[in-house]
């Protein structure tokens, strides 16, 4: 399946991209993050939340279908 991964704020800065496509088998959020942290070591010490199709999810959530995965650093609105 294909995932669209989106990076925001300090995470876009850490990875030097804002969006990428990733082909993967069905996996948990933590498995996906492991893969991304391996690819972008600078993500490892960052604090962030994960949203799948715009809904916040836990790290044990299983991704089974094509989805938009967003890595969201601490919120700073207002």
């Amino acid at each position, binding site marked *: 399946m294909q995932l669209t991964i*989106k990076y*925001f*704020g*300090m995470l876009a800065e850490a990875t030097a991209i804002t969006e990428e496509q990733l082909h993967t088998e069905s996996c948990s959020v933590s498995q996906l993050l492991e893969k991304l942290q391996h690819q972008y070591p600078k993500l490892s010490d960052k604090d962030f939340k994960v*949203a799948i199709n*715009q809904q916040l999810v836990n790290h044990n959530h299983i991704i089974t279908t094509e989805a938009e995965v*967003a890595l*969201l*650093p*601490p*919120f*700073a*609105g*207002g």
Partner: protein
Amino acid sequence: MKKKKPKNVFVPGAISSQFIGESIAKHQTKTSIGAHNIFLGQVRADEIDGKVITAIDYTAYEEMANQKFHEIREATFEKFDLTCMHIYHSLGIVNAGEICLFVFVSSPRRKVVFDALEFVVETIKADVPIFGKEVFEDQTHQWKQNS
């Protein structure tokens, strides 16, 4: 879940006092309103390790943020007896001293608008995926985090 398309809350750059003034004027025709309450978020020129913040550069996960703003609107109308409410948030550069958030709630009675405004502002700060790059005078930066 309702399928109503969320409004776009974001405006490019700072929110001008003219825009805020016009927004107030537009409510003169709504004569059931007896009380307005307004929150204006302003960018602070904080000094950190001897360097002064000159601006905040805002970005957002816009689709999710607008959806969250929509949910906040629905929850606020559910909770409080409001006649209307408006939210505007900046994207891009907002200089110190300029306005980056404008929340406007109106009701027939005053007590409601005090509580409603606090609820809206606190929920925005906690739940909406907006990110702020605090830019210093020497063009270095750090990332803002709501407390």
